[in-house]
Each structure stands twice: as C-alpha cells, then as structure tokens.
C-alpha cells in the first residue's frame, strides 16, 4: 500500500503517472518541483522511511543508459544498465540500495518513451556489437510490474527488428511474470532470478516470494520458451551453510529444465566500504554486517578472503554436479572469472 504519491508537475499527465495514481486512489497527492527535493535531502533515515515508503513520480532527464559495473558480465559485447525505478519494494538486509540512497521512497521515472528512444539510439550506436542491458540494478525489474507496467512497455521495444542484436536482462526475485507469459518468448530477453535457500530468504530477504514460488515462476517461463538465468548472489554465510545451499541447488536443478538455463552467476555478500558503513549504522544490531566480514581489496567489504573462497568453491562444486555451464563467479576483490 502506498499512502503518499509525490508528483512532478511536468509528468502529471503521463500514461504511467495516471496508472499509478489510479492504482492508489486513497493516497495523498503532493506536488513537487523536482524529485531531488524529496529523494536527495541529506538528513533522511532509510530504515525509518522503509516503514512506509512513498512513490515519487518523476521524469528522468540527462543520461539514461549507463555503463554497467565490470562484474556484471553474463554475455554480450558490452554491458549497460538503465533504471526506470530507484529502490525496491522488498527489504533484503544485504541490499546495497540501503547504503547508496538516503531515501527509501520508490522513485519511478515515468518517461518510458524517452528511455525507449535512448535504448534504440544506443543499440544502433553499438553497430555490430551486441549490447546487453540490465534493468534490475537499482530496483527489482518485475516486483512492481502491476503498478509500473515496465516489462509491458519495454518488451515491445526489444521485440523491434533493429533491436534484435541487443539483449535485455530482467533481474528479479518476483513472481510477477504475467507480462511475459502473455506474449511470445523473446530470444533477446533473459529473466534472471536471484535465489537463496528458504532459510536465508526468511532471515534476510523480507517481503520476497518464497523459493518454491520463484522456482514455479521460473519453470513456467521456461515452459513458455523464455531464457532464464540463475543468480546465486549474494550467498550468505551461516551455521548451516553447506546443508542449506546443498538443498537449494538440489531444489533448483530438480524443479527447472536444466538443459534450458541461460547463465549462472555466483557471488557472496560484498559491499563498497562506504555502503557497508551506512548500512551497519542503520542496522547496528544485525549480524550480517559483522559476521565474518573483513576489509577486502580496493574499497570493498566482504567475507574474509579464505571464507569467501571456501563458500564459493563449495557452491561451484555443487552446481557442477547438476549442470555443465560456465559459472560467472564474483568475489569481493572485484575479480571476475568464469571459473573459480
């Protein structure tokens, strides 16, 4: 439920704005000049705001397609991301958004047409190269789909003839897959699901769908011909680690069509140092920011190197028992390798 919608005057009449406003008829509408007035002030507390986040409807000016961090490598020739939304309806304790933004409000950029034009132009500028676009970097791609209609709006863009060399990766934990199932599967769209054992989900992924629900959604997508990716990231260390991850991999590779998995990535909890500092201040009582954590190369905080290696190696070996696919492994030292 959303109780307040902040609204930039200039986008009041956009189709997306009208849909969101209609979705929450009881919400108070508050006019704003620019989204930064609400989203950016310094003295905000992310944790307090997460109790009752508002929606901010705004237009995104300036650069809309960004270079993806180096570690986002799952295929294609160049990696980019675009964010129609900042922040997420879920409340995963490890999520870096808590450390990156001061506000927990959902900032939705409603000028989808501008994003679409930029994507077309950007893809054209890539020439013969095959660009790969991530949409779930600053939010969950599908979690708010019934409200935002994001996939509904952007899948047709990637279905266009001149976009066939470009790939869209929707990164999600959500089971909101109706927008995908109602249309034919697309070769240049990957739906990548973040997965963790059910015990980890219950402990640190508040508000997210249960593992079995995610797997059911993935299987339905596979059956409909969609490319599905597996993101075992972040792996969370705990006392029953080996058992719970062993069970996870067994569940995943039993439930899914193993021959039709697009890509697999693996990484443990890791955060830029300044994000970790902010998050540990927001949740000083939480073990996640303390247990096994150490300063790593560069400005990263992650599990102690030997511990991280042990966790990732175990997961890698387990995955190898079920599939013959390269696993992209990400370490806190920003080392990207196809195999550990």
């Amino acid at each position, binding site marked *: *439920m959303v*109780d*307040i919608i*902040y609204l930039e005057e200039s986008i009041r009449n956009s189709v997306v704005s009208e849909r969101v406003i209609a979705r929450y008829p009881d919400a*108070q509408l*508050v*006019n*704003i*000049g620019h989204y930064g*007035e*609400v989203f950016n*002030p310094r*003295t*905000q*507390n992310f*944790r*307090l*705001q997460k*109790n*009752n986040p*508002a929606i901010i409807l705004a237009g995104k000016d300036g650069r809309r397609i960004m270079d993806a961090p180096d570690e986002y490598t799952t295929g294609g020739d160049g990696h980019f991301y675009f964010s129609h939304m900042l922040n997420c309806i879920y409340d995963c304790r490890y999520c870096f958004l808590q450390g990156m933004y001061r506000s927990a*409000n959902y900032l939705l950029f409603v000028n989808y047409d501008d994003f679409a034009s930029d994507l077309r132009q950007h893809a054209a500028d890539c020439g013969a190269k095959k660009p790969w676009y991530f949409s779930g970097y600053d939010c969950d791609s599908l979690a708010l789909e019934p409200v935002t209609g994001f996939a509904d709006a952007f899948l047709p863009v990637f279905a266009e003839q001149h976009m066939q060399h470009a790939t869209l990766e929707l990164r999600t934990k959500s089971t909101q897959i109706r927008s995908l199932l109602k249309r034919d599967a697309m070769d240049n769209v990957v739906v990548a699901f973040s997965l963790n054992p059910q*015990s*980890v989900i*219950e*402990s*640190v992924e*508040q508000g997210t769908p249960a593992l079995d629900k995610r797997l059911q959604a993935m299987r339905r997508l596979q059956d409909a011909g969609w490319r599905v990716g597996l993101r075992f990231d972040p792996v969370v*260390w*705990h*006392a*029953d680690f080996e058992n*719970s991850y062993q069970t996870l991999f067994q569940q995943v590779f039993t439930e899914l069509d193993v021959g039709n998995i697009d890509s697999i990535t693996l990484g443990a909890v890791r955060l830029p140092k300044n994000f970790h500092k902010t998050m540990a201040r927001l949740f*000083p*009582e*939480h*073990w*996640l920011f*303390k*247990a*096994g954590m*150490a300063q790593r190369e560069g400005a990263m905080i992650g599990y*102690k190197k030997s511990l991280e290696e042990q966790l990732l190696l175990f997961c890698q070996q387990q995955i190898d028992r079920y599939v013959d696919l390269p696993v992209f492994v990400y370490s806190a030292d920003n080392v990207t390798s196809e195999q550990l």
Partner: protein
Amino acid sequence: MSHSITPLPKVDLVLVTALVAEARPLLDKWRFQHVISEYGFRLYYSEHRCSALLITGIGRNSAAAGVMWASSYILHTVTSWYCNLGIAGHAVQELGTLLWVNKVAEQHSEAVHYPPLLRKNDLPGTELVTVDKPCDEYPENCAVDMEASAFVETARRLVSSERVQLLKIVSDNPQSHYTELNKDKVQELIAQQLPAIEKFVSQIQNVLTTTQTSFADLPIEKMRERWHITVSQSRQLERLWESRDVLQQYAADEAPDWQQYSSVKEYLTALEHWLMAVTPTLDKTRQNG
C-alpha cells in the same frame, strides 16, 4: 554571560507551539512542569510522557531560535522527535479540523520541505505555506501559518527528517476571519483534538521505538585505568564491542574478558579473532527480524 545547562533526563518528543494558548490543553493533560523561561521562550517537561514542550512565540525567527535554544536542554536519542502543533488558516477545510502537514513551503524564499509519513494515519494531509504576516488570503487548498518552515528547517539540523512532524488545527478560513480568534477559542480548538493528537503521537513513537537498538556500555573509563588507549584504538574498541554484543548469542565460547589482557592491542587482537570465529545461526536471527 555563560551558565551551565543541565539536560532534561529523557526526551522522546519535543512539542513546539507558538502560543501559550496552543500549549495549554497539553500542559494540563500531560502534567508538564515548567523548566525554564529565557529570551522569551518557555520550556516544560513531562516526566511520565518523556516529553518536552516549548513555547516559542510567533513568527519564523522565534520558531527557529526557540528550537535551537531548547535543543541545548535535550540529549537527542534515536527515539527523539519534534512535532510542531498549532493553529493555521486554511482555504477550504472546516474550523477545528486536525491536519497532518505533507508539504511546507516558505512564501518569502521558495524553500520547500516534505515531512515523511512514517505510518498511515486518519488525518487529512495538507500543504502549508508559511507567511511573515497574518493574512486573510488563503492559497488554493493550502494551510497558512507563520512558523512551520523555520521549525522544520531548524529541527532537521537536530534529527533526521522523518522525526520532524507537523500537526495543524484549522482556526480560520475564508468564512471565519483570524481576527475573530482569541485565547479561549484557540485552547478550545486544540483541546477538542487532543485524542487525535495523542493517537498520532503514539503511532510515531511506536515506529521510532521499534527501530531502537541498545548495546552494553563499553567500560572505556575502566579500560583507560588499565591501559593507555589511543584515539584510533578507542574507535576500534567501540566498533568491536558492538560486534561482540551482536554476535555473542551465536558464539560457542565466551567473548575474551578484557581484564585478562595486559594491553589494549592484545585485547583487540583476541577480540577480532573471536569475532571472526563466530558463525551466525539463521534460526536465531529470525527473532531479530
């Protein structure tokens, strides 16, 4: 002239009004005791409500200066919050309506603030414009007062924006001129809304209390008696002591006892090793949410 200030024992809520008449119903109901009057400001304290009440006088300058003056008597904690309570004119709302302010604009500067809604309440929301002089022109669908923008701007220097809230009771509108107001009328308007005000206060305090965390005190003074501790070691001690407090419940062994170590360096090393060996158990973490 300087004088020593003794902070109030524990303040969760700081209520801020411009007028005595706005404060009167709460002064009585919450059994506030007078603490100090100085520079035209009056500060009261209610022990059983862990609240302070500040009367600033009328206008932006008084509100800003008053809040800053009172802050020297208040030790802010993670549960401290400020609420501006007072009367306001409104273009369309009926007299006596209690409003939660969702936007504060300042007429003379174009500064704008958006107090976050921490929990859904039953109160109608309103935009509010702070003006410098009493006026009988009401901006479209807006409340009008003379303090709010300065109150918000000043209080946000002291606590995060979520902990700065405003409640306004409609005292005048195009059908009922502000010149008809008097002390008794203002008191009556506030008194009628006391139950709703108290409900709002309790909702906010519930949210703030659930995010409160406390740790065992680091016995730094006793440690200093035993060891020479540098500033950087002191910071490290604070950080690791907090981790010790959080992870202790998952540990197989007791945390190292600081009194068994001959130097702070040795203790820090032992504590770090101990912390690294603690493996969290998910079953227990669920209780922490």
